[in-house]
């Protein structure tokens, strides 16, 4: 199991996030995406692998880097994408692991709308619901939450995943792959903890517009 955590300027919280994951899964790969704070130093204080991007290439690129690093080790069967800001629970990863272990799915996706969202701001709820509607129409798969950072997939899916959108559109890009490649997917309820920290760092309204236009344009030109 390889847990990939893309990190950009999360010096305040990253150490706690990593150590929570390490309690259960020992192979954690942190991709430091050109942070300008003490993120790299904080990661070095833990037992997580540190990869430094030479420049800021945004979250989708960072995920791809972490996955490609993990793929070098043939013993890695499953990959997890995990957010750095502490909004995900390691207990949810364990639950997802159990689902994948049954061997009937290639990818399991976390859903905050099947599970619990603690302190989720209303504007975010509306935005995420809109994103769900939009992505379901375009990717041809049915989900209740399309922009959840918590996912687990098997090695075969990881090998086929070649994320080319650098920014936040990777969420829709992954689902697009799932829909086109006829991968077996399942949603699992997860709990997302919102607090002042995640709310200031999370996705903004403007970011959502970027996500939508990236995807629409990718269909017109490539």
């Amino acid at each position, binding site marked *: 199991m390889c847990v990939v955590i893309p990190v950009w300027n999360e010096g305040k919280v990253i150490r706690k996030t990593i150590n929570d994951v390490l309690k259960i899964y*020992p*192979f954690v790969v942190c*991709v430091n995406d050109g942070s300008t704070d003490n993120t790299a130093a904080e990661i*070095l204080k833990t*037992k*997580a*692998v*540190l*990869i*430094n*991007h*030479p*420049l800021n*290439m945004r979250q989708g*690129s960072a995920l*791809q*880097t972490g996955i*490609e*690093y993990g793929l*070098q*080790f043939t*013993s890695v069967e499953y990959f997890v994408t995990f957010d750095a800001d502490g909004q995900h629970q390691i207990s949810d990863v364990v639950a997802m692991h159990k689902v994948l272990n049954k061997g009937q799915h290639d990818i399991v996706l976390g859903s905050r709308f099947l599970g619990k969202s603690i302190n989720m701001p209303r504007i975010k709820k509306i935005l995420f619901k809109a994103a769900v509607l939009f992505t379901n129409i375009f990717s041809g798969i049915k989900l209740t939450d399309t922009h959840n950072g918590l996912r687990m997939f098997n090695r075969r899916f990881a090998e086929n995943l070649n994320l*080319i959108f*650098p920014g936040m559109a990777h969420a829709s890009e992954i689902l697009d792959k799932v829909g086109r490649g006829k991968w077996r997917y399942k949603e699992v309820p997860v709990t997302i903890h919102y607090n002042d920290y995640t709310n200031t760092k999370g996705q903004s309204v403007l970011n959502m517009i970027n996500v939508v236009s990236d995807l629409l344009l990718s269909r017109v*030109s490539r």
Partner: protein
Amino acid sequence: MIIRIMLILSIAVLLAWVLRQRGSIVGEARTKLIAIALFMAAVLAVLFPEITNDIANSVGVGRGADLLLYGLAVTFLASQVIYNRQRNDDQRKLYKLARKLAIIEANQLGRNQELHQEKS
């Protein structure tokens, strides 16, 4: 009169630049032919402006200057789209390169190697 000389001179300089370019650009010969054709059309338009007027009238535009402006607007937008696409392609290549570099560097770090040995 002076404006005609200035216009023809400047497009001649541009043409010379295009023709002098060497390199491995695919379709280079085609690019040069298009540049020569454009140059000749431009010189004709400068020397005999009534030609552009006639063409404009034949497609339902009042003046040749207006037709040129419309063409310019479309060409400008097209070049922006092409430029953007090339920039995206370049960015993807750059990110791929940076990723390779980051992974090679991570593999060489003694700390990461030790971590992996501890686990296996």
